[in-house]
């Protein structure tokens, strides 16, 4: 049963004209992806706590439900019924708009994430898919600055500005690192990029032309983009309390967290799509169709998610000066070097 089938059923059930089924499909897709996003965040936070516990030789959550599996659900419920305070001195309107500007871009990225083969497992395969991701995820900088500014709190403003400086510094290497796959696949569409990696393990873009470099630059820059350890300075609790979201409480705070954790899944999904063959099986033609492709996609994305969690448990936080210089003096030159090497490889007509 496909989404179109369900939509046609709904349309006929309510006596709507047949042409409206396209819209019903779109709304259903949007709702499914929203639900998926919330569910991933719930699971991700639980797994993160358990895994961090394991790595640090403790148990993690144990009380809420068997092995504490309802812990994040309980946390979400707590945030929902928590009092929502807006400081008197805050700029109310901007304070309210800022979480929207952070959350909605994180959600919009899901439009082009290819969960599997064909048109059923992607909301819309835009022609400019990858550029769309880069563009949409650049919006949240405004939300971060405005959240910090509107709180009328020194820590918030400082955290917001630092965070924005970090976001913009790592946006450039991130946008440059994805160009390797674009050159090799000749397309910005996510499905085209996956299809260009269908010849098994060694056709994945991580191994083609200049191995590993693009992947590593992308992953590191993306980690900085989502404030992931070791780049979690905006929230450095020892110096900034909690950064730009100090004054936020209850659900408003939850939207910032949701956006951050949702993004930590999407960047893994995008990294898997661009460099690890997306939904393709590692062996050519082996279990490489239908729902199996969804399985491979989630296997790869989850492996990357676990890698990020491992990094989170391992590395200490960098200093702000180290962060900026690392971005501008190492990441951007490396990303440009990668573009030129892959460019030369493609220009010489290799790997085509």
């Amino acid at each position: 049963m496909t989404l179109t089938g369900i939509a046609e059923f709904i349309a006929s059930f309510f006596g709507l004209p047949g042409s409206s089924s396209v819209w019903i499909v779109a709304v259903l897709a949007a709702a499914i992806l929203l639900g998926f996003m919330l569910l991933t965040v719930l699971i991700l936070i639980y797994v993160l706590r358990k895994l961090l516990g394991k790595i640090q030789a403790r148990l993690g959550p144990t009380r809420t439900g068997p092995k504490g599996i309802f812990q994040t659900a309980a946390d979400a419920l707590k945030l929902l019924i928590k009092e929502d305070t807006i400081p008197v001195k805050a700029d109310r309107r901007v304070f309210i708009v800022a979480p929207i500007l952070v959350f909605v871009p994180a959600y919009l990225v899901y439009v082009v994430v290819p969960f599997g083969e064909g048109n059923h497992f992607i909301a819309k395969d835009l022609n400019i898919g990858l550029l769309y991701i880069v563009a949409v995820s650049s919006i949240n900088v405004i939300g971060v600055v405005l959240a910090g500014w509107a709180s009328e709190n020194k820590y918030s403003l400082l955290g917001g500005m630092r965070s924005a400086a970090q976001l913009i510094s790592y946006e450039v290497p991130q946008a440059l690192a994805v160009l390797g796959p674009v050159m090799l696949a000749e397309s910005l569409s996510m499905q085209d990029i996956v299809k260009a990696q269908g010849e098994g393990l060694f056709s994945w873009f991580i191994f083609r032309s200049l191995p590993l470099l693009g992947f590593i630059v992308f992953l590191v820059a993306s980690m900085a983009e989502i404030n992931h350890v070791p780049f979690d300075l905006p929230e450095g609790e020892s110096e900034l309390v909690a950064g730009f979201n100090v004054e936020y409480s209850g659900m408003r705070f939850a939207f910032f967290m949701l956006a951050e954790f949702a993004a930590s899944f999407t960047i893994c999904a995008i990294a898997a799509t661009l460099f690890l063959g997306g939904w393709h099986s590692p062996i050519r033609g082996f279990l490489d169709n239908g729902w199996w492709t969804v399985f491979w996609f989630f296997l790869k994305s989850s492996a990357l998610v676990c890698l990020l969690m491992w990094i989170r448990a391992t590395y200490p936080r960098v200093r702000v000066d180290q962060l900026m210089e690392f971005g501008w003096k190492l990441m951007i030159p490396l990303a440009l070097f990668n573009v030129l090497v892959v460019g030369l490889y493609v220009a010489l007509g290799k790997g085509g």
Partner: protein
Amino acid sequence: MDWHTCSFYVLSVMILGSALMVVSLRNIVHCALFLAFTFMGVAGVFALLHAEFLAAVQVLIYVGAITVLILFAVMLTQKTIGISLKQTNRLAPLAVLSAVTFLCMIAVIALNTTFPTSGQHTVAVSTQTIGSAILGNGSYVVPFEVASILLLAAMVGAIVIARGQDN
């Protein structure tokens, strides 16, 4: 009214409304926020015209970069809250007059022009079209390289000005 026209009017209202806010609000950060909404509306119009590459660039550069630059500039100019800007001065009537004159002029020109409409379909793959314009033999190669020099000049200029203030 079909979807296309309808979305065009919705976007136009969004663009014009936000633009009006930008020039009339008294808090400069609010102005910057509405400027971002204006840019998003323009990106929507580009998308509507099938110029999807331009739409993405509009979001990436104008919403994600220029607005941030403006916000940083605002933060640079110290205490911004509580200061209510005056967006007009005593030259306002004159400015209104010249703006209205200009608007009338444009309106007259626009109404008297017959715009040629193309029977062809809109270009679907705009990224490729732009790419071949940049790369293609002799087409826009020189302007493309000159753009790079322009960017270099902008960067050097910015650095010189900023450092001048530091010293």
